[in-house]
């Protein structure tokens, strides 16, 4: 959605509405170049949902007196969340915007029983298989070995518990594919901690091991204790309810043969 807005005293603002993991967002900005880049980058996630979270980019207005509920700064760009709305300031390019969107989502998902995970997600037979691990473990390899159209994301997966069911969503955040993920979701079949090996082998993990697998791969940026406690609650629920395995795999598509259905 692209619509000019009134903004007395400054350049007219335009807005773009999108939805990531069913979290509706409305980006408002006056920088036409940035607007064009953002519109193109998030085109697959364009969505006009009710009651979006409004984000004012580089608004220039004086900050409110009330302290921000949440704030984060990254390479000169700053996110500040107020009860009245979200401010992104110092955003000079689409990469800074992308970074702040990840930070904002990681925080907003706390209230929606969800989290962002460094993981590739592949949909197979209607279910989401989530492959996580440290950098170089094989997330992009798994994605590249999967059929075209089955990759929800090769970089950052979004997981949410909805009506008692964990679902994985694609995100527009790029990995090595250099392409946005798919704006769809599927119920989670399992989470797989990747380990490249000579033979394919899958081993079930205990709940504590699952939590230890998830924590280093979760995107989270709040240093506030209560937010971290809530994150730990959500991850504990995920670790208890989602089957999780270590997947030792060869760098070819035969690993699917050992995965549980």
């Amino acid at each position, binding site marked *: 959605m692209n619509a000019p807005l009134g903004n007395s005293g400054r350049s007219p603002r335009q807005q773009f509405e999108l939805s990531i993991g069913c979290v509706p967002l409305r980006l408002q900005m006056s920088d036409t170049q940035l607007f064009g880049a953002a519109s193109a980058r998030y085109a697959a996630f364009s969505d006009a949902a009710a009651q979006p979270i409004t984000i004012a980019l580089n608004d220039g207005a004086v900050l409110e007196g009330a302290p921000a509920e949440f704030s984060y700064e990254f390479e000169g760009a700053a996110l500040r969340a107020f009860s009245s709305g979200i401010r992104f300031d110092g955003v000079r390019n689409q990469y800074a915007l992308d970074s702040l969107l990840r930070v904002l989502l990681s925080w907003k998902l706390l209230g929606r029983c969800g989290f962002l995970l460094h993981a590739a997600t592949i949909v197979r037979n209607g279910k989401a298989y989530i492959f996580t691990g440290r950098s170089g473990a094989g997330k992009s390899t798994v994605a590249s070995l999967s059929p075209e159209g089955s990759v929800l994301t090769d970089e950052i997966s979004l997981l949410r518990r909805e009506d008692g069911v964990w679902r994985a969503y694609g995100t527009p955040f790029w990995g090595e594919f250099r392409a946005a993920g798919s704006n769809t979701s599927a119920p989670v079949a399992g989470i797989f901690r990747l380990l490249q090996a000579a033979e394919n082998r899958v081993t079930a993990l205990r*709940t*504590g091991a699952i*939590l230890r697998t998830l924590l280093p791969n979760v995107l989270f940026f709040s240093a506030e*204790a209560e937010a971290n406690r809530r994150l730990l609650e959500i991850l504990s629920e995920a670790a*208890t309810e989602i089957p999780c395995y270590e997947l030792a795999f060869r760098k070819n598509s035969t690993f699917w043969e050992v995965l549980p259905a």
Partner: protein
Amino acid sequence: MIPPAGVFWQKNPALAWREIDDETIIISPNDSVMHELNDTGRFLWKNIDGRKSAAELAQLLVENYEVTPEIALYDTQALLEEMSSRKLVVTVPATGGVSL
């Protein structure tokens, strides 16, 4: 450095922690570091409540593990010192404040 006798130990209130599947996992939000505890560490962690001294915690170890009072006190002080260095626990002075 072990604090003087008479101080109590409590969990650092700035932490997030969870017991799951017989494991205790602790997160330090300020540096996003994840900590895990061994068996004795988990036992102490469960009993650190801001109302017990190192000696009292050591006595609980004696009552629950086959260990002499001397070894229990040595282990307890060593673990408290280690946890304190990681800012997982803090001492509560007689005045009721928290010492980091």
